[in-house]
C-alpha cells in the first residue's frame, strides 16, 4: 500500500473524527439554546449561573491550569468588571451594552498591575500576591466614594418582564460560555497552549528553548482577567445589586479553583465537567444542612465552605488531575491494549 493512500486514509479519519466532535458540540449547544425557552424560570437561572462559572473557570484555567500559576484571587477581576459596569452605567450613563467590553478592559488593566510585579518571579509568590490583591481591592471598593462604599450600587433594570429578563441573561452567558470554551480548546491545541504547559512542567528549560515565559504568563493572566471582567459585568446586571462583600467574596475565587481542579486542571473539558459537579454538590450540601441534625443542632448553611475546603485538599492530594485525569487514564488503557 502506498504511503500516500495511508496518509489520505489517516487524514480522512482525522477529519471525520473532528467532524463528529464538532457536530456533537454543536448539538450540545443547540440543545442548551433550546432549553432556554423550554424549562421553567428557576432552572434558567441555575443554568445561567453554571454558564457563568464555566466562563470564569475556563478563564482561570488558562494561567492556572496550563501554566500552573495559581490565581487565588480570580474574584478581583470579576468584581472589578462588575463594578466597572455598575459605576459607568449609574454614574456616567454609559449604555449597558457598552459597559461590558469596558469592564473587560478595566479588569485587564488591573491584571496588568498584578501580573507585572508577580509574574516576573518564578514559582509561587504569584499565588500569595493574588490573595492579597483581592483583599486590597475589596477594601478599596468599600472605602471609595464612587463605588457607593459598603452600601453598594443598584443596577438599572432591563425593560422586560422577569422571564424574558432571565432568558436574555441565559443566552448572553450561553453565548459567552461557548466562546470561552472554544477559546480554551483553541489555546490547548495551539503553540500558546503548548508553551504554557512547558512553563508548568519546567520553566527554566522552557525559557532556554526560547519560550518567552514572562510575556506568555502575562498574556494568559490578562486573557483570564478579561473574561472574568466581562462575566462580572453581566453578573452585575443580572443580580441588579452589587456590594463589596458579596461581589468580592473569596468564595467565588475558591469555587473557581475547586471547579477547575475537580474537572481537571489544564484541560478545556475540566471546567465544563467540574462546574456542574460542584454546583450540584453545593446544592446537595445545602439540602443536607437543612435536614441533618449535627450534634443536636441544625447545620448552618455556611458549613459548605468547610466541606469545599476539605474536598479541595482531598482532590489535590489524591486525584490532582481531576475527572479528566481519570478519563484519560481509562482511555489510555483502552488505546494501549
Amino acid at each position: 500500500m502506498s504511503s500516500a493512500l495511508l496518509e489520505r486514509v489517516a487524514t480522512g479519519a482525522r477529519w471525520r473524527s473532528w467532524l463528529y466532535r464538532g457536530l456533537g458540540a454543536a448539538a450540545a449547544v443547540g440543545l442548551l439554546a433550546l432549553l432556554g425557552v423550554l424549562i421553567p424560570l428557576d432552572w434558567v437561572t441555575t443554568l445561567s449561573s453554571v454558564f457563568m462559572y464555566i466562563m470564569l473557570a475556563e478563564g482561570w484555567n488558562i494561567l492556572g491550569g496550563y501554566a500552573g500559576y495559581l490565581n487565588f484571587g480570580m474574584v478581583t477581576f470579576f468584581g472589578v468588571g462588575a463594578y466597572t459596569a455598575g459605576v459607568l452605567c449609574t454614574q456616567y450613563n454609559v449604555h449597558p451594552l457598552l459597559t461590558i467590553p469596558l469592564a473587560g478592559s478595566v479588569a485587564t488593566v488591573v491584571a496588568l498591575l498584578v501580573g507585572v510585579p508577580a509574574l516576573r518571579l518564578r514559582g509561587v509568590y504569584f499565588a500569595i500576591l493574588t490573595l492579597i490583591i483581592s483583599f486590597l481591592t475589596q477594601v478599596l471598593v468599600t472605602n471609595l466614594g464612587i463605588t457607593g462604599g459598603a452600601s453598594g450600587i443598584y443596577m438599572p433594570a432591563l425593560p422586560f418582564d422577569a422571564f424574558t429578563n432571565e432568558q436574555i441573561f441565559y443566552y448572553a452567558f450561553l453565548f459567552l460560555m461557548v466562546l470561552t470554551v472554544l477559546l480554551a480548546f483553541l489555546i490547548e491545541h495551539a503553540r500558546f497552549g503548548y508553551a504554557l504547559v512547558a512553563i508548568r512542567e519546567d520553566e527554566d528549560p522552557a525559557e532556554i528553548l526560547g519560550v518567552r515565559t514572562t510575556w506568555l504568563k502575562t498574556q494568559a493572566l490578562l486573557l483570564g482577567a478579561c473574561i472574568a471582567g466581562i462575566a462580572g459585568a453581566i453578573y452585575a446586571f443580572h443580580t441588579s445589586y452589587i456590594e463589596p462583600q458579596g461581589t468580592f467574596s473569596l468564595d467565588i475565587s475558591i469555587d473557581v479553583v475547586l471547579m477547575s481542579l475537580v474537572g481537571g486542571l489544564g484541560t478545556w473539558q475540566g471546567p465544563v465537567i467540574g462546574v456542574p459537579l460542584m454546583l450540584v454538590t453545593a446544592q446537595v450540601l445545602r439540602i443536607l444542612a437543612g435536614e441533618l441534625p449535627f450534634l443536636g443542632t441544625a447545620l448552618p448553611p455556611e458549613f459548605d465552605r468547610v466541606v469545599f475546603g476539605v474536598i479541595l485538599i482531598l482532590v489535590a492530594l489524591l486525584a490532582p488531575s481531576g475527572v479528566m485525569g481519570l478519563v484519560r487514564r481509562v482511555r489510555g488503557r483502552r488505546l494501549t491494549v
Partner: protein
Amino acid sequence: MLTTISLSLLVQALINGLLLGLVYTLISLGLSLTLGIMGVVNVAHSTLIMLGSYLALELLQRLGLDPIISAVVAVPVFFLIGVLLERLLISRVARTSQTTGLLVLFGVLVVIEGAAILRWTTDTQVLTVSYTNASLTLDGIAIAVPRLIAAVIALALVVLLDTFLRSTLYGKAIRAMAQNRDAARISGIDTDRLSLLVFGLATATAGIGGVVLAMIFPFDPQDHYRWLAWAFLVVVIGGLGSIRNTLLAGLLIGLIETVSSILFPFQYVYFIVYLLLVVALLVRGQGLAGSQSRAL
C-alpha cells in the same frame, strides 16, 4: 516647620511604629521560616494567626486568662497544630509539584476560615482587659500599654528564635537543611523530623502573633488577609536571609504604617503597602529565593 506638638506627635508615631514593627516581625517569622527552610509557601499562615486571636478570646471569656498567659498557652497548642498539619498534609506534598502544595494549603485556609465563621460568626471581636486603654505618658508622649506588652513578647520570641537557630545544634542542622536539604540528609540530619520541628515552630509563632495582635487590634475571621499582606511584605523586603533582616524589615513596615497613617486616611495605608510590595518584588526579583539568601 515642626512645632513642639507635632514633634512629640512624630516621636510618638515613631515609637508606636517600632512597637508595631516588632509585632509584624513576629507574625512574619513563620512565613519566612517555612519558605526559607522548607520551601513551602504557606498561604494559610494568616488563618493560623487568626486562630491565635480566637484562642486568646476563648481563654479570656471562659477562664478569664490574661492574653499574656494565653501567649504562653499558644506555644504548645499551635506547635501541635503545626506538627499535625506537617505530618498530615505538608509532608505528603513535599515531593510533588508546588502547585499541589499550594492547592492543599489553600484548602487549609478555606477550612480554617470556614470553621472559624461557623464557630465565632463574622462579628468583629475585641479583647478587653484591665490595661486595654491604659497608656504610659512621658513628656507628652503616650504609649499604649497593650502595644508595649505585645512588642515585648514579640521581641522576646524573636531573640529566642534567633538564638536557637544560631547557637544550638538543632539550629545549625536547620540552617544546613535550608541551604541544601539533600546534602543535609546525606550528612545524617533527619530532615523529616526537622521539618516537623520547623513547621511546628512556625505555627507556634503565628499563634502567639495572633494572641499579641488581638491585644492591639479588633479581629474577625475574614480580615486576616491583611496580616498575610503584611507578613509577605516583611518577608519580601527582609528576604529569607536571617531573622535579623526580618526584624529590620518588620520595624521598617511598622514605621511606614504609623507615619503614613498620620498623613493619609487609614485605607490608603493598604495601598502604600501594596506599592511597597510591588517595588520590593520588582527590585528583589530572583533574589528572594536565591541561593545566597537561603542561608538562614
